[in-house]
């Protein structure tokens, strides 16, 4: 006998009926650390071994439900909060359209968790070092025999008694199983360190190549690289090396009238509001105001920027200083810019700028209404019969 650690006793049987009988006997005698090994699952063995129903379903249920919830939450967040987009005239949270993906994610999570949970948590796999692996016992079970194994740490284990019981049950072969010798793996071996280094070099090299070279390769970029000059590109054709040409001195765009007060401080006395407020011009002013001015000045010119502090908040336009400005000065500020406010001359036409001025005036009056204004409104609504 050797001094390996004793694992347990195994017995082989020829027929399924015998093994069921044996399992029943063992469980009724109170053995707990025994196991039956069969080439395929046998009907009725669960009862014979007195096994509790598998609890695997709970893992599936938990992860399945989390899959559905996570998928729906994620789609809700991306499609309705982070980047809302109208798609096909549907609401941002278009539940019917989210169900397919929610279902797929449920299935994916549930199945993967079931399998991984079973293999690792329930089976303790991978476990190629189990004492039974590689034994003649398991080889026979693998083909067509039916085996039963009792571990020696079972409280009721007694070598002779178990042997006798196996004999009485009709076992064809009884075998003793020992734990395999545990090999210690030398960590600092030359070979191992060499292997480790090789891996490190290959991994870092590949990573470098992928991140810095491969990611920037254009496999076939014929549409991108055409025989033409891209704006700002260098050109050998011209003596100065610029691909773009400067227009002839004094060229102006068609319809463009240079702003004559550019850079001046307050040329308002030369700028007279040419527009008589009408409904059309007020609506134009409102539209342009909301487009260009409101992002910083706020929808009602209160200085409550809509940019959530990404840009310094400008002052409200309802201060006395602004209200006392003449139209021309506001026009000038829009055209020329002021402090960190840029010029809006290229985005808006002269007419639109005056319309904005009129609209700002209307906003100012509305926000600072006097009693006489209110009376006027009352009078008007009374005249309209409201």
């Amino acid at each position, binding site marked *: 006998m050797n001094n390996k650690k004793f694992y347990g006793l195994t017995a082989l049987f020829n027929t399924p009926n015998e093994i069921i009988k044996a399992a029943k006997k063992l469980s009724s005698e109170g053995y707990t650390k025994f196991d039956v090994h069969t080439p395929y699952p046998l*009907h009725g063995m669960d009862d014979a071994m007195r096994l509790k129903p598998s609890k695997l*379903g709970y893992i599936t249920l938990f992860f399945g439900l989390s899959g559905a919830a996570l998928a729906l939450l994620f789609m809700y967040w991306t499609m309705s909060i982070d980047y809302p987009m109208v798609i*096909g*005239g*549907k609401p941002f949270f278009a539940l*019917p*359209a989210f*169900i397919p993906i929610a279902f797929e994610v449920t299935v994916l999570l549930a199945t993967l968790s079931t399998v991984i949970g079973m293999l690792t948590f329930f089976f303790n796999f991978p476990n190629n070092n189990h004492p039974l692996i590689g034994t003649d016992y398991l080889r026979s079970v693998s083909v067509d025999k039916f085996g039963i194994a009792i571990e020696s740490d079972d409280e009721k284990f007694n070598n002779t008694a178990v042997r006798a019981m196996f004999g009485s049950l009709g076992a064809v072969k009884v075998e003793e199983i020992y734990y395999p010798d545990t090999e210690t793996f030398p960590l600092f071996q030359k070979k191992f360190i060499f292997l480790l280094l090789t891996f490190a070099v290959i991994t870092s090299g590949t990573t470098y190549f992928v991140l810095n070279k491969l990611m920037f390769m254009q496999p076939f970029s014929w549409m991108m690289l055409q025989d033409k000059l891209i704006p700002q590109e260098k050109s050998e054709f011209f003596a100065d090396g610029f691909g773009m040409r400067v227009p002839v001195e004094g060229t102006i765009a068609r319809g463009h009238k240079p702003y004559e007060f550019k850079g001046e401080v307050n040329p308002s006395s030369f700028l007279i509001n040419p527009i008589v407020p009408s409904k059309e011009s007020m609506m134009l002013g409102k539209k342009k105001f909301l487009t260009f001015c409101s992002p910083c000045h706020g929808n009602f010119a209160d200085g409550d920027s809509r940019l959530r502090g990404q840009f310094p908040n400008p002052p409200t336009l309802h201060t006395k200083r602004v209200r006392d400005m003449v139209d021309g000065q506001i026009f000038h500020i829009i055209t020329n810019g002021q402090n960190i406010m840029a010029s809006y001359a290229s985005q808006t036409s002269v007419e639109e700028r005056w319309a904005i001025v009129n609209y700002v005036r209307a906003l100012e009056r509305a926000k600072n209404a006097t009693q006489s204004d209110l009376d006027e409104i009352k009078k008007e609504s009374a005249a309209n019969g409201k």
Partner: protein
Amino acid sequence: MASKVLEYQKKSLPQSMNKLGWILLVVGAIAGAAAFYLDTTRALYNYLIVYMFIMSIAVGSLFLIALEYVAGADWSVPLRRLVEFFAALIPVMFILVIPLLLNIHTLFHWSHAEAVSTDAILQGKSAYLNSTFFIIRVFGILIVWTLFYLLFTRNSMKQDITKDQKLTKHNILFSAIFIPVFAITITISSIDWMMSLEPHWFSTIFGVYYFSGTFLAALAALTLAVIFLNEKGVFGKLLIPDHLYSLGALQFVFINFWGYIAFSQYLLIWYADLPEETVWFLHRWEGGWVIVSILLIFVHFVVPYAVLLSQPAKMDPKRLKFASIWILFAHLLDLYWLIMPNMSSGKEGSVPFGWIELVFPVALVGLIIVVFTMRAKNKNIIPIGDPKIERGLDFHL
């Protein structure tokens, strides 16, 4: 191995069942007649719901029989007789259909010549949707169903005595023929009786949708009958939990199937958003109908799904009984949801619900019980002559 068929003893159904059936039927019928007198249109629509429900149970049962033969299933053999008793409703439908046909103009907009003459779409359909062809179809289909019903049951009953295996072979052949016939007839019936209530609307999946409910209802009726009669000891100790498990699992599958078909139909119409299609769902989203529609999702899918999800639940007679009754109710609600919004006399979006809606189902339950018990009288409750009966009784998962 001892033969389990020998353990079978012929027992009659409990007397109280028949009595209860008659009481429900008579009370329901009288109240129904009163309803007809008071509000013909509304009563008629309710009657149509009940008629479609009976069609579901009757023809669904016939389909169950055929499916068993074709699939070669053995677990369901001991239960087949009950299915045959349910299928006995088919001949009764000849009588039941008459009030509907007499009032065809109240039900169907397309049956009015003057309505068709001003409606280009209805004119296009008039080759199919006209009263004469409609009646021909209705009776033609009923005759075909009755024919198959007689063939199946006659062979099955004869086998009790002769134990002739040839009869099984014949029934398999009839079943194979019946299944495509069933697919076509059930589709036509669903289009005729329900889709054409809203004659402009169309959906290619509608026949499959009705089929999914039909199958589920027939299955639930069978399960209920099995559990009830087993409790009363009619089966003795012949049935084991594995039989129930099979029924429960099938129910679960078809709950999913219904959900799948219903969702497919809804999603495609909702996504494409074509006015000629969405109008049907809009009618079911107006006023109080929105509650019924949402309720339907829960009643027909979510609740039975949750009830039958776990493995033990599919074997537990109590749970299964609850699920079966629930599913039968769900199917009734489904039909109510399909048919009622088309009632033209009602206000837009108002959900008609009152005593009239309650008395018809009472009569329905009564009728089913009465037909079942009358048919089951003096008959073997299991097909003792079937060659597969032994395998069906000695069935283990």
